[in-house]
């Protein structure tokens, strides 16, 4: 077994237990063995975390690429993997393989493909996928166009107790679109879909979730109307949660001007009014999960005319720093951010993680919430296409501990 680790002098934050204060945390036998003021056990490896924050390792809910190096550099110890792999995770064997793909540095929790080949037509073997390790099912990059298929998916997944992760864009309205309808899309001559393509999909899926009793998670809610639909459904008792990525919190559709393909995302960036609305959604807790949407693309796929470029950005390494922007802006507290990045996704997907309670897995991130740096995609692990390239930010990961092992240090 690994030697015990004692992290001393840091501000220990655990939203699950309510812990927030300077304390020493002792890790032993790959679990959290103690938190408090006691002296570290003899022989323990001491990590001095004075002036730093100590929190449960981040859980990135909904990545498309399980890049372990990028994850660790970003303080992420678990990734919930979207089924949009090559081939799609519509087979239990593929799910089982994906589950082991990040160990030991990062644990990958796959979402099973909801439909065969993610085509939105026939249900995939989601019960067997669950037995193989899937923590939920997902519709993939696109919504399921056929309401009947979606209804059956929700009913069937509910029978297995699985969360359904949905992409909220009406398939017909967004067919061929690469931008949000508005002046910028018109000026650039980009095929665009109205922003309400999102709320239309959310309203349908929430109604179907209500009818089936299913648990629904909308991975990205990016518009004021979409958020209103989520709030209304929750008020009616629908078991629906919603997530967001930093891109939609900090960028609006102006970012695509000049045909910057790094800002080609799915769903597309929205106008300023919608951006401010989703900030409010974070403030009031309607958006409970912050994820990177990590989906890096190769140079060949991005150095294209805007509409021909692939959607997606590298996000794992900037998730924490950009999230800390919400704390600096006074939108949420630091424990509130840790909850969005770790505790809430763990709860939603039933992971034994996202907490520092005694006996919990020793997944820890230690970071300096104030350390300044400049985002530089060229220095990322793997592909570095990010619309935040060049942006000065603050918040650096110092140590990442996965299952009691230090897997990354600055």
């Amino acid at each position: 077994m690994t030697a015990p680790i004692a992290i001393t002098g840091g501000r220990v934050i655990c939203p699950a237990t309510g812990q927030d204060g300077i304390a020493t945390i002792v890790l032993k036998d790959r679990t959290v063995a103690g938190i408090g003021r006691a002296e570290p056990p003899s022989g323990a490896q001491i990590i001095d975390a004075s002036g730093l924050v100590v929190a449960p390792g981040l859980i990135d809910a909904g990545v498309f690429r399980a890049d372990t190096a990028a994850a660790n550099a970003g303080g992420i110890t678990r990734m919930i993997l979207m089924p949009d792999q090559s081939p799609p995770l519509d087979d239990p064997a593929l799910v089982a393989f994906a589950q082991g793909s990040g160990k030991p540095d990062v644990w990958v929790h796959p979402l099973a493909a909801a439909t065969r080949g993610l085509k939105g037509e026939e249900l995939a073997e989601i019960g067997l996928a669950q037995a193989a390790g899937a923590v939920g099912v997902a519709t993939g990059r696109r919504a399921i166009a056929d309401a009947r298929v979606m209804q059956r998916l929700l009913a069937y997944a509910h029978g297995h107790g699985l969360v359904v992760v949905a992409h909220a864009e009406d398939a017909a309205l967004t067919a061929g679109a690469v931008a949000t309808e508005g002046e910028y899309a018109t000026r650039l001559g980009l095929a665009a879909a109205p922003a309400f393509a999102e709320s239309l999909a959310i309203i349908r899926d929430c109604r179907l979730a209500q009818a089936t009793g299913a648990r629904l998670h909308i991975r990205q809610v990016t518009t004021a109307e979409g958020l209103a639909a989520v709030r209304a459904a929750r008020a009616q008792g629908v078991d629906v949660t919603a997530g967001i990525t930093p891109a939609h919190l900090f960028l609006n559709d102006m970012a695509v001007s000049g045909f910057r393909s790094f800002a080609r995302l799915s769903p597309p960036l929205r106008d300023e009014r919608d951006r401010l609305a989703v900030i409010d959604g974070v403030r009031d807790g309607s958006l409970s999960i912050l994820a990177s949407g990590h989906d890096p693309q190769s140079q060949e796929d991005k150095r294209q005319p805007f509409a021909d470029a692939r959607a997606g950005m590298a996000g794992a390494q900037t998730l924490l720093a950009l999230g800390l922007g919400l704390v600096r802006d006074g939108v949420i507290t630091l424990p509130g951010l840790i909850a969005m990045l770790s505790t809430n996704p763990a709860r939603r997907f039933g992971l034994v993680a996202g907490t520092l309670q005694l006996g919990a897995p020793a997944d820890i991130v230690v970071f300096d919430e104030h350390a300044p740096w400049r985002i530089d995609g060229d220095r990322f692990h793997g592909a570095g296409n990010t619309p935040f390239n060049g942006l000065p930010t603050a918040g650096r990961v110092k140590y990442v501990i996965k299952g009691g092992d230090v897997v990354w240090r600055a």
Partner: protein
Amino acid sequence: MARTPSHPALADGAHPFPHAHLLGIAALKPWEICFLLDEAEQWVELNRSAAKHVDRLAGLTQINAFFENSTRTLLSFEIAGKRLGADVVNLGVSGSSVKKGETLLDTALTLNAMHPDMIVIRHASSGAVQLISEKVDCPVLNAGDGRHEHPTQALLDALTIRRRKGRIAGLKVAICGDILHSRVARSNFMLLAALGAEVRAVAPPTLLPAGLDGYCVQAFTDMDAGLAGADVVMMLRLQTERMEGAYVPSPREYFRFYGLTEARLARAAADVLVMHPGPMNRGVEIDGAIADDIARSAVSEQVEMGVAVRMACLDVLTRRRRGVEGWA
């Protein structure tokens, strides 16, 4: 051939055209637009003369890289280059290795390695021409990219209007038809608004893009209202595949409500000028008799101005590399 500059800023010594490329109207100041129009005038005269040739661009290589089918624009750019004495080569869709899977940027680098002095590009994707311009060492002229811009078309339209009407400021210009998919409309909106025209967009609701307020363009879905008092009516081509139920129910229904007929045109100003970027769908968006009426229709003149405007653009954009005094 000294002319009085048509914009006060030019008389005050503003640099008439500090751009390396011509990617769109969006980047141009009003006086830069006026300068290009002023420059084009001399070529209108040359093109009407017997000789029709100068050696200004002798020894320079012009590549016309058209990744999307085109007849008239390609021909216009080719003639423009040849009348200025440039060595003009055309790269058409069928001859391009894009079909063989080469990326656009690899194609751009290949063209660049042949040391052209100017590249004229048409591409079906918005922004493609800008992308190429970032990777090559010579001036790039946008001959139409997706639904984004078609700057030389807007310039030739402006030249046509200016010669016929003597001005652009204050004119009511109605641009009618498939605005949603039209790069010609977008470039014209910006150019005409920059020069002080009152611009209207007339189209069925399914073919009107969002955010027209930002262009200072007034949108109309009623053709009669949109044409009321118009000094210039610019018709746009409606592609056949968009008429069979996708955006409008049928060609005949479209003509009934949005076709330019005598009755409808009577609502415009008495001396209205009718324009069309071509190719025309007679009986779909425009009555054939109106198109043929040379008193009102400027369709042929637009084609003529096209060559002159493109000569001006090729000349102006290559002045720096030709070492023309004041352009270093």
